[in-house]
């Protein structure tokens, strides 16, 4: 029941939010907050009670909790949830950012509060479903289901500076991109299922059943199906030729929507590649790995360059996401345990860091009424708490040692160097660009001559505690990543073993105090 509860709590919580709006504006907010805290608490409880290193090194699947119910037996579809270390990290991230997203909309959203929180919670329910589903049909359901609430979040509660048409356009763009990508993936899923069906006469959408299906098909077909999955996830990650929706969606989304998008929704794509693309099509993925990593490098530089020229603070952060997702892509396809483990940290760190930056951008906008960095300037003098926090997150964005981002990037680059040294060297060079855009961000907003003499209210306790909690977690993971690495090690070993069984990379010491990169 635990895993169903993880999805049902936000679902029914959202419904309650909507219904309870007439009782007062505060009621939906509290319901939403309590729901997300419950999700987070369940996640933490699963972390504390589960044993995610029990089968260390054997490379098997380690489902700590598993649930299965009958759904559409005629198609071989069941409601099948499972949680391993990778899912757990994602669930924790979702719970945490869910709480944060509700918290940061406390003052920002003033219209239709109930419906807003319903959409927010339903999108989170969809995301949680994606992270837990072990049936491809169920996975696809959640994958598509989470789009609709996000669409509404952007289209109805989005940025108010333009008229509604711009928001709707951005939301529609987002929806069409991801939906088309999703349909391509659906073709891949169905083809995979039918290959399996033709060979075994068993119609099943179940993850573990389909894991062996790649042995039943020709290498061309495997490559084609892998591409179907890859395209579906690439749109959401996003990877450069298909990234067009991201900056617009972020620019128009409300703060909570941006946190949701950058922090969690993008991670569903990384998760999907790790959970499905690599284990389902190991040979084709290896064949494709170089191209994918090249795309990753292109994305890293493209995102960084475009971030540099943005004047809108939210667009800047959006483009840095594209850049960071390039690292994720390299991490995924290098396929040794170091990069995969670094990947988990990187995804979590990016979620927290981008979330924090979007929240700060939202807070600046609430006060100054602009997101244009040319009109900011000199904010350092006007706030006590906001500037150092912004500086911290900007530093985290460029991956300064001591933050989780550093650990993630470092592990990815270290691991990838053994596999693809040239690509890694090029990718490492981009860290300079990361420094540039981070500094530009700080410089343009905080320093220089103030654009106006106006005084602004400083951050409230609510706002400080939200941002500070994110910062503390970034620091904690930055200084002591071992607990997080321990959680994901079994899941990542499995992926690594299926993807590249020949490659015996340096095993990570588990549970010990030793550095994760010890020789």
């Amino acid at each position: 029941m635990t895993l169903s509860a993880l999805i049902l709590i936000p679902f029914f919580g959202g419904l309650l939010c909507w219904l309870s709006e007439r009782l007062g504006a505060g009621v939906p907010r509290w319901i939403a907050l309590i729901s997300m805290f419950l999700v987070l608490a369940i996640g933490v409880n699963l972390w504390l009670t589960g044993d995610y290193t029990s089968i260390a090194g054997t490379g098997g699947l380690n489902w700590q909790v598993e649930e299965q119910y009958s759904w559409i037996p005629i198609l071989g579809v069941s409601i099948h949830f499972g949680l391993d270390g990778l899912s757990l990290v994602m669930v924790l991230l979702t719970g945490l950012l869910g709480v944060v997203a509700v918290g940061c909309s406390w003052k920002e959203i003033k219209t239709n509060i109930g419906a807003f929180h319903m959409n927010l919670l339903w999108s989170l329910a969809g995301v949680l479903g994606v992270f837990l589903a072990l049936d491809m049909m169920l996975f696809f359901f959640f994958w598509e289901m989470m789009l609709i609430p996000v669409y509404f979040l952007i289209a109805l509660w989005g940025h108010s500076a333009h008229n509604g048409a711009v928001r709707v356009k951005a939301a529609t763009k987002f929806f069409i991109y991801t939906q088309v990508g999703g349909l391509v993936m659906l073709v891949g899923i169905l083809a995979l299922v039918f290959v399996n069906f033709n060979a075994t006469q068993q119609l099943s959408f179940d993850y573990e059943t389909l894991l062996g299906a790649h042995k039943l098909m020709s290498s061309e077909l495997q490559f084609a199906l892998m591409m179907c999955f890859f395209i579906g996830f690439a749109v959401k990650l996003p990877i450069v030729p298909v990234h067009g929706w991201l900056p617009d969606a972020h620019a128009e989304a409300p703060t909570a929507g941006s946190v949701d998008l950058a922090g969690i929704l993008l991670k569903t794509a990384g998760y999907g590649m790790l959970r499905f693309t690599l284990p389902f099509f190991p040979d084709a993925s290896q064949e494709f790995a170089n191209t994918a990593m090249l795309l990753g490098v292109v994305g890293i530089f493209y995102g960084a360059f475009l971030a540099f020229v943005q004047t809108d603070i939210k667009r800047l952060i959006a483009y840095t996401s594209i850049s960071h997702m390039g690292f994720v892509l390299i991490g995924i396809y290098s396929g040794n345990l170091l990069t995969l483990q670094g990947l988990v940290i990187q995804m979590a760190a990016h979620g927290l860091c981008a979330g924090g930056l979007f929240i700060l951008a939202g807070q600046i906008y609430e006060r100054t009424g602009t997101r244009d960095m040319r009109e900011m300037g000199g904010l350092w003098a006007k706030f006590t708490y906001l500037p150092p926090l912004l500086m911290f997150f900007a530093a985290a964005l460029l991956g300064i040692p001591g933050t989780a981002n550093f650990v993630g990037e470092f592990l990815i680059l270290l691991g990838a160097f053994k596999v693809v040294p040239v690509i890694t060297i090029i990718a490492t060079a981009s860290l300079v660009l990361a420094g540039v855009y981070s500094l530009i961000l700080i410089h343009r907003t905080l320093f220089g001559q103030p654009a106006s003499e106006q005084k602004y209210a400083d951050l409230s306790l609510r706002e400080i505690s939200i941002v500070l909690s994110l910062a503390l977690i970034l620091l904690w993971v930055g200084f002591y990543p071992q607990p997080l690495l321990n959680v994901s090690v079994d899941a990542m070993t499995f992926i690594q073993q299926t993807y590249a069984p020949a490659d015996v990379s340096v095993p990570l010491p588990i549970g010990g105090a030793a550095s994760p990169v010890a020789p």
Partner: protein
Amino acid sequence: MNLTLESFLPLAPVVLLSLTAVLVMLAVSIKRNHCVSYWITIAGQLAALMSIFALDGFAIDRVATPVTGLILIDGYAFFYSALVIFASLVCTVFLRNFIESYGNNKEEVYMLLLIAAVGGVVLVSSSHMAGFFIGLELLSVPVYGMVAYTHERSRSLEAGVKYLILSAAASAFMLFGMALVYAQTGTMLFADLGEKFAQHGGYLAGFGVAMIVIAMCFKLSLAPFHLWTPDVYQGAPAPVGAFLATASKLAIIAILIRFLGQVPGELTSVLQPVLAVIAVISIAVGNFLALTQTNLKRMLAYSSIAHMGYLLIALIAGSSIDIESANVYLLTYVVTSLAAFGAISALSHAGNALDAEEVNHYRGLFWRHPALAVAMTFVMLSLAGIPLTAGFIGKFYIFMTGVTTTSWILLAALIIGSGLGLYYYLRVMVALYDRTNNNAEQDKSPIGGVSVAVVMFLVALVLWLGVYPQPMLEFINTLH
């Protein structure tokens, strides 16, 4: 042939519907009363629907029963008959609220509707060219009258005439095609076609079959035979549009499936690439032209062209018709379309010069009629084929057909079409929640309570089929 009561029993739905039509006529001639005509129509259709279940139409061990040589009653015939009657029943409910404010005679429209329903049932059960043609004309001719029923509106009259002419042209095509097939094979029975063709061979039958299929494409408004669709959908009163989009189309598809299933493979294999092209063109034309529509009815018309294109994939991909996919798709499409037109009907009145058909009319509907707006949201999502709605299950089956038959080009068309489709469905959907343009005058227009209730019921069905499709799929799986 021994004509006993027993042998006519499977015809009960047809008989009951015809009787009801006569009853409505008699009732009108005794005393005009809208309410009485309406309830007779409802009761008659309910009885016809019941009779299908009373006859055990869906029993697994049911054997196909031929009646009079023209008609073959089997599980499919019952399934499609039930769908046709259900659709026309729902249209009746929509009609009542709509026609209430009509200045002229209101009662005859029910008669026309009933006759058309009879035609639909005959059509889906026919196994003989004669039954085919009789059913088709019985279905089409009353619809001319229904489309032009509100003839005070010039658009309605125009639409009626347009539909009449083009439909008649299509019928002529079909008759000629039948004549050619008969000239070659000497039989009108679908079941004998293959055997007779094998004996005689020749080209004429091929032409004949092609002409019949083209006529069907006309009726299904598949591109490039789609030109009448937007005008007729726009001009027809909204509830009639509902009938046209659902009962009429599904009956024609049912007979097309039946017919193509019996035609020898040598004849259809030539048509297959042609139909594939038609499917792709329909998907492209329907979706592209729907993009810029500001009129909801026209948009639905173009979207129906695209949907028929999707459906065609189930008929032509691979070497045989994927009947199961077609059935699932049709069922989900019919329920969704009924709800879409029902929502328009609920806000439209025959007394007004126009139906509530502009997208602008729906702007901010959520703040006036929240229930209807939420219902329309799900309808749009279902038309777009988003999970958790019936539309997704339908589309899923088409995808399955495409993948199992490895028809990659058709799948690509399906994906691109769906992407384009999202654009206009989402546009309508988000307009429902627009706060900026909330005209106060539109608030005054009354709303059909019963129609809204039926729309809600249909939307509940859409969600149920989308979330828990197992019973529906199981049921369709057992049809034979």
